[in-house]
């Protein structure tokens, strides 16, 4: 199975609430990234957290990384309807000749106005 398994698969919240999404992975990583994808559009890079970091903030986003548990979480505070999208975590994994990036199936977030 692929690295980066997110849960929940789908999340529906009210505007103003916080949304938390989790990601687990299986092997050692150099870093973990979170992406957003609006329906039918390309992926947008949100935030990267390195393996030696435990927490990182960017605006309303907060990402944590626990390498001992091989897990990460993405918290979106004070959610807005515009945050409705699919969110993916991705890990960079060493492979023969270089790195490859592995994505999970994503969490679909729906923020109700």
């Amino acid at each position, binding site marked *: 199975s*692929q690295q980066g398994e997110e849960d929940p698969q789908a999340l529906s919240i009210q505007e103003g609430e916080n949304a938390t999404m989790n990601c687990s992975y299986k092997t050692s990583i150099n870093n973990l990234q979170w992406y957003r994808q609006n329906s039918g559009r*390309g992926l947008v890079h949100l935030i*990267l957290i*390195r393996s030696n970091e435990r927490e990182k903030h960017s605006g309303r986003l907060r990402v944590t990384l626990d390498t001992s548990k091989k897990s990460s979480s993405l918290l979106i505070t004070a959610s807005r309807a515009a945050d409705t999208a699919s969110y993916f975590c991705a890990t960079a994994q060493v492979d023969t000749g*270089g*790195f*490859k990036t592995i994505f999970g199936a994503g969490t679909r977030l729906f923020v109700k106005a």
Partner: protein
Amino acid sequence: SQTIHQWPATLVQPVGSPLSLECTVEGTSNPNLYWYRQAAGRGLQLLFYSVGIGQISSEVPQNLSASRPQDRQFILSSKKLLLSDSGFYLCAWSVIYPGTGNTEAFFGQGTRLTVV
């Protein structure tokens, strides 16, 4: 700055027709390049990745092939499309930062392929 171009944005092709999707990257050299497919409502599936010219790794058996004729060009092809090839295809590139070994991936806007 680095940019990635992927075209076309949408494509409708009949079953049995050939396919060629092109992706080019600007502003970087020797990137790792990727093709992903996303079926409707599903996650991303890594199809191919390349660490250099002419070097292609296939992740899943399928009706598609990839080529990298130039350092910053990655092409996804098929000789005969199947209905099951319909999906959203994303090209991406990643860079490895010297010293730290950290990497970041960047994506194109995607091509929505409908095989009819």
